[in-house]
C-alpha cells in the first residue's frame, strides 16, 4: 500500500512505471539522443568554461554518481559492504573516470580512462588507436584486459569490476537505486539475456579480430579495411551509443538500472564466463528462507534469487554483479556473498524441491 500524501504518491509513481516514470524516461532518452547526435550541449559546456560536450557529460555523470551515492550510503549505513563499496564507486568515478583524464589532457597526455578496459572500451584494443599511445598506456591496456580483469574475476567474481569500478554499474547503483527492482525476473527474460549478451560479446570479439587483421594486412587488402570500418561504425552506433547510453540509461525508470549490463555489455558477458568457474558465489543458509521474495524483488540483474534460496542451493550466476543487495534486504539473513576456494556442494538439504526448477537446470 502506498503511503498517503501526494509526495509519496509521486515517489511511488516514478519508481513503479507510472506516468512520471515514462516522462522521466523520455527526458533521459532525449538527453542521450541530443548528446550523441547533436552538438547542442557544446553551448552550455562552453558557457561554464568546459572544452566539450563530453566534459560536461562527464561532470554531470560524476555529480549523479556522487549525489546518488551519498543517498545510498545513508540508506544502507548499517551495512559495511554497501558503505565501502559505494565509497569506492564514487572515488573511482570522480578520480579515475573524471579528474585524471582531464588532467592528462591538460598535460598534453592522451585522455586515458584507467577504470575502463576492453571489451567495454573497444578503443583500448583497437591497434590503430592503442599503438599510437606511449608504451605505458599500451602495456596497461593489454595487461589490464588480458590479465587483471580475468584474474580478479576468478578470485572475487565480476563484482570487483561491475559493482566496484565500472562507471555504468556505478551509475546504476547510485543514481539508479530507486529503479533497481524493475528488472524482469522471469525465466523467459533470462533466456533472452543469455542470447543477447553473448551475441554482443561475439560481435565485439569479431570486431577486434577484424581490426587487427585490417591493421596488419590492410595495405594489401583495401576491401578488408573498408568492411572493418563499416562494422566498426555500426558497432559504435548500435552498441556504444544506442545500447549503452540511450537504452541503458534512458530506460532506467522503465526497465530497471542494469538493462545494458544484463542484456548487452560484452565486458559483463566475458566476466560472467570467468565468474562461473571462479571462486565467487552466493551462499544460501540451509532451510532458513521464508520465500518472501525480497531478494528477487531487489535484484537489479533480474535473478530469481528466491528460487535458489528456497531450494537451499548456494549458487553462482554468470550475470550476478555482486552488488550485495539481496543479502541486505533479506529479513532472515539467508544469503551471503563470498569467495570460496572450493565450491563444495552443501550438505544434503532437508527440503529440496527439484521438480519446479527443472528448467533452471538447462544452464
Amino acid at each position, binding site marked *: 500500500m502506498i503511503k498517503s500524501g501526494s509526495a509519496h504518491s509521486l515517489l511511488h509513481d516514478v519508481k513503479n512505471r507510472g506516468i512520471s516514470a515514462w516522462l522521466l524516461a523520455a527526458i533521459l532518452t532525449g538527453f542521450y539522443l541530443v548528446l550523441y547526435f547533436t552538438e547542442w550541449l557544446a553551448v552550455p559546456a562552453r558557457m561554464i568554461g568546459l572544452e566539450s560536450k563530453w566534459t560536461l557529460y562527464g561532470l554531470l555523470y560524476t555529480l549523479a554518481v556522487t549525489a546518488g551515492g551519498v543517498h545510498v550510503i545513508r540508506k544502507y549505513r548499517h551495512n559495511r*559492504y554497501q558503505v*565501502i563499496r559505494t565509497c569506492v564507486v564514487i572515488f573511482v568515478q570522480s578520480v579515475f573516470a573524471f579528474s585524471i583524464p582531464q588532467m592528462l589532457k591538460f598535460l598534453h597526455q592522451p585522455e586515458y580512462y584507467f577504470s575502463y578496459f576492453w571489451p567495454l572500451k573497444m578503443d583500448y584494443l583497437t591497434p590503430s588507436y592503442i599503438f599510437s599511445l606511449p608504451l605505458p598506456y599500451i602495456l596497461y591496456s593489454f595487461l589490464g584486459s588480458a590479465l587483471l580483469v580475468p584474474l580478479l574475476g576468478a578470485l572475487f567474481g565480476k563484482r570487483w569490476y561491475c559493482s566496484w569500478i565500472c562507471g555504468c554499474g556505478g551509475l546504476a547503483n547510485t543514481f539508479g537505486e530507486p529503479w533497481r527492482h524493475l528488472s524482469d525476473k522471469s525465466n523467459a527474460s533470462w533466456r533472452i539475456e543469455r542470447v543477447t549478451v553473448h551475441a554482443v560479446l561475439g560481435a565485439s570479439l569479431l570486431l577486434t579480430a577484424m581490426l587487427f587483421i585490417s591493421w596488419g594486412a590492410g595495405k594489401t587488402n583495401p576491401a578488408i579495411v573498408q568492411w572493418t570500418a563499416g562494422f566498426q561504425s555500426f558497432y559504435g552506433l548500435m552498441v556504444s551509443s544506442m545500447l549503452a547510453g540511450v537504452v541503458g540509461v534512458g530506460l532506467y525508470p522503465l526497465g530497471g538500472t542494469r538493462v545494458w549490463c544484463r542484456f548487452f555489455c560484452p565486458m559483463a558477458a566475458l566476466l560472467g564466463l570467468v565468474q562461473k568457474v571462479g571462486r565467487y558465489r552466493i551462499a544460501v543458509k540451509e532451510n532458513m528462507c521464508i520465500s518472501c521474495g525480497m531478494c528477487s524483488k531487489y535484484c537489479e540483474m533480474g535473478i530469481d534469487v528466491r528460487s535458489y534460496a528456497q531450494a537451499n542451493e548456494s549458487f553462482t550466476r554468470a550475470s550476478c554483479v555482486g552488488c550485495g543487495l539481496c543479502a541486505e534486504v533479506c529479513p532472515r539473513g539467508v544469503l551471503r556473498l563470498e569467495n570460496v576456494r572450493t565450491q563444495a556442494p552443501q550438505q544434503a538439504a532437508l*527440503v529440496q524441491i527439484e521438480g519446479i526448477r527443472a528448467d533452471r537446470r538447462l544452464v
Partner: protein
Amino acid sequence: MHYVMIGNGVAGITAALKIRERDRHARISVIGGESDYFFSRTALMYAFMDRMNPRDLEPYERKSYDAQRIERIRGWAAGLDANRKIVRLDDGREIAYDRLLLAGGSVPNRAPWAGLDTVRDGVVQFVSLQNLADCERLTPSTRQAVVAGGGLIGVELVECLVHHGVEVDFLVRDSWYWPVALNREEGAIVSDHIRHCGVRLHLEQEVDRVTAGADGRVSSVRTNKGVEFPCQLLGTCIGVRPAIDWLKSGAPGLALGRGIKVADDFRASLPDVWAAGDCAEFTRPDGGSLLEQIWYSAKRQGESAARAMLGDTAAYRPPLFYNSAKFFEIEYTTVGEVTRAPAGATTFFHRVPGKDASIRIVENEGAVVGVNLLGSRWNHKWFEKWIAERRSMAHVVANLHLAQFDVEFGRLALESVRAAFQSAERRAA
C-alpha cells in the same frame, strides 16, 4: 491416481510439487479459498509497506503450475465424505479424490474482549490476504492504532502501521517482550528498539474492553490497568489456531483436537486422508500434543507428508527447533531450547557493547542445548551440529567465528564476547 490438497499454502504446494517430482503421471489438484496462486504469507508486511507488489509474493512463476500439471481450484472446502471419497466445496462443487491432504493452515484466534460485539469496523487481524485488504482500507483513515499481542505477527503489523505514519500503542501482556522465546535481557533490547522506532510499547497491559463510536467503528480501548487508548484501528494479534472449523461438522469421523489429529506418518483418522502444516496435531511420545506452526515446519511437513502419501513408511520426527525473526531492524536467530531449558542449566549471556546485539548460550550437563542470538547474522547449522555433538559452551564460544554469517567487512567483533566468557569462567572457578 488423483491426489487432492486442501490448502494452497506452503504445506499444500510443497506436497503437490513433491508428489509430482516422484510421480510423473498422477493427477494433482490443489484447492485454495484465499488466493488463486500460492503466495508467501511471511511477506504480507512487505506488501503492506509497498516494498513489494502482491504478485511479488508468489514464490513460483504462475506458469510453473501448468508446467508441473498441478490443477488449481479456487474455492472453500466445506465438507468431506470419506466413504464416497469426495470433497464438497461451499458452492456445491464436488471433487473426487483417491488420496487427500488437509493443509488448511491456521486462522487468527478470536479475542475474548468485552464490547467487541458492538464494534462493526476497525478491528483487524494480520494473517490472510483478506486481512491485508482490511488493513489497507482502514489505514488512511487511522491516526492512532492499538495493536494487542506481543508475538511475531504483532510486531510486523506495528512496523507496517508506523511506516504509514500511524501512532501505535502496542499492548503486551507479559512483563517483557515475548517471554516464550526471549529472556528478560533480550526482551529489554527489543523493547528499547521498538520504542526507539517511535512505538508506545506498554508492557503488562492487555485489552479489557473495546468501545465503538457512533459510526460503529472502534474508537477506544481500555486496558486491564484502566488506561484508555483512543484509536481508529485495533489490531488483534493474539496467536493463531488450526483452521478446522469446517471439519467439525463437515467431516464425520475425523478425529480433531486442537488441530487435525495425525499419526507420525501424517495419517488422519479417516482412510486415505493425511494432514500437514499448521493444522496438523501430532502426539508426542510423552502423550502431549504437538503443533508446529511456522513456515519451516509447514514446508518440511508438506514434503514428508507427500512421501507418506506416496507410500514411504518413514515416521516423522521433528528436528531440533530453530527459528528466525526480525523486530524492526534487529535480526534474531534461535536454535534448541533456551527459555524452556531444563532446570539446572547454566547460561552465558553477553550484550555486545554499543550495539543492539547479544548472544545467549545455554548449557546443561556439560553440553550446549540452545542459543538465542540477536542483532547479527549466524548460520544456525553450526549450532545444530554443536548441539547434536553435545559440545561444551567453551567449545562453542571458541568456535563462534565459524558460524558467523554477517556481510563482508561487517563481521561482529567477537573479542568482547570471548573476554566476557573468560571472566565468567574465572568467576565460576
